[in-house]
């Protein structure tokens, strides 16, 4: 397999100190950090249909040793995540080597093997009262009036068990202290959480950051259609500022003061 050969080369030629990929252990495809000392382990390298936030793991490693050279198996979403982490100075692009994996279909390849490409089944009750995973934000906005939008989202949000999984799995959530743990914003030890504040705080913090990998939705035990929510966040940021997180290495409009964006406050319509 070319991938294995390429990864081995990276390690053997000391281009990287560690290579993050996947391997099979006890029947589970799980991430693994391959090293030069055990380079033959790379024969077990898998692409894995189960995606884990490898970029977050890379951050963990870089934090322990900023000079560590890291190789990483990168899907399109990983690439976006990496760009974002470069932008925010969490990873040094000079220390990162990527081996790209075909996932989302692109002009270069007609097929993709990402499990996220297949639509998720949405139950009848969710369709009637909640938010369909597969709806686009624009359709959702067009098909439901304001009251219905509110009740549907509140139905989804009030299921939240505050596991913080969405944040924990997110490859671009790197803050050492999280506003979601701030006692003045989210009261600790209280379940269910006050709606919709938890999710709105997270949604605002994802503005200009979310790279649409979908890991949050996957990790949610309450089946909240988070990916669809953050897609709306991305749509809004891109509509207003023309900024697509992870597209290139450029700070988000919320971190740039000045004339880059000329906006006027929306008028108050009564």
């Amino acid at each position: 397999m070319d991938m294995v050969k390429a990864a081995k080369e990276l390690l053997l030629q000391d281009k990287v100190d560690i290579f993050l990929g996947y391997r099979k252990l006890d029947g589970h495809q799980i991430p693994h950090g391959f090293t030069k000392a055990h380079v033959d382990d790379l024969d077990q390298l898998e692409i894995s249909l189960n995606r884990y936030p490898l970029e977050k793991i890379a951050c963990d490693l870089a934090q322990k040793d900023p000079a560590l050279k890291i190789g990483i198996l990168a899907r399109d979403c990983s690439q976006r995540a990496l760009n974002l982490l470069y932008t925010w100075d969490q990873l040094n692009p000079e220390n990162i080597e990527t081996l790209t994996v075909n996932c989302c279909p692109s002009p270069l390849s007609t097929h993709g093997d990402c499990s996220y490409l297949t639509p998720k089944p949405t139950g009848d009750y969710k369709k009637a009262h909640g938010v369909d995973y597969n709806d686009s934000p624009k359709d959702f906005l067009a098909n439901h009036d304001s009251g219905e939008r509110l009740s549907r989202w509140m139905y989804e949000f009030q299921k939240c068990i505050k596991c913080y999984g969405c944040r924990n799995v997110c490859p671009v959530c790197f803050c050492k202290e999280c506003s979601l743990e701030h006692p003045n914003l989210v009261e600790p030890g209280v379940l269910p959480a006050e709606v919709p504040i938890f999710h709105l705080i997270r949604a605002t913090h994802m503005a200009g950051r979310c790279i649409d990998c979908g890991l949050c939705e996957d990790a949610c035990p309450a089946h909240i259609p988070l990916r669809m929510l953050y897609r709306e966040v991305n749509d809004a940021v891109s509509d207003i500022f023309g900024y697509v997180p992870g597209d290139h290495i450029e700070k988000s409009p919320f971190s740039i003061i000045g004339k880059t964006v000329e906006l006027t406050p929306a008028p108050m319509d009564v």
Partner: protein
Amino acid sequence: MDCEFVPSVCSYCGTGCGVLFEVIDGRINRTLPLKSHPVNQGKLCIKGWNLHEYINSYMRLKGPLVRENGRLEKATWDEAVNQAARRFTRIKEEHGPDSIGVLVSAKITNEENYLAQKFTRAVIGTNNVDHCARL
């Protein structure tokens, strides 16, 4: 630097969710849900997500401590066990076995839990035994 991932099962409750420990240079650094585990299918609750925290917690008790003159002092296992036995015996004699209750923890093994209930029922002589993970 070494970085490996070790699949395991969450010890917090009886559900048995599959977890994956991120181990960097032999030290557990992070917990991730095991995506291919049939029980939790890549999801975890807040306790599971923080499963790694207590292992390296500075508050974790690593040896027996005995309170002397209001202060906790390091002691040997023999001293600690003897002292506990002495005090339990006295309490049982003065107030009866039901004045004692035992709470066990999810963070010990099944076998240890079994032993604890055996100890409570057979040695102390009470049914006052419970476990933190009664989900």
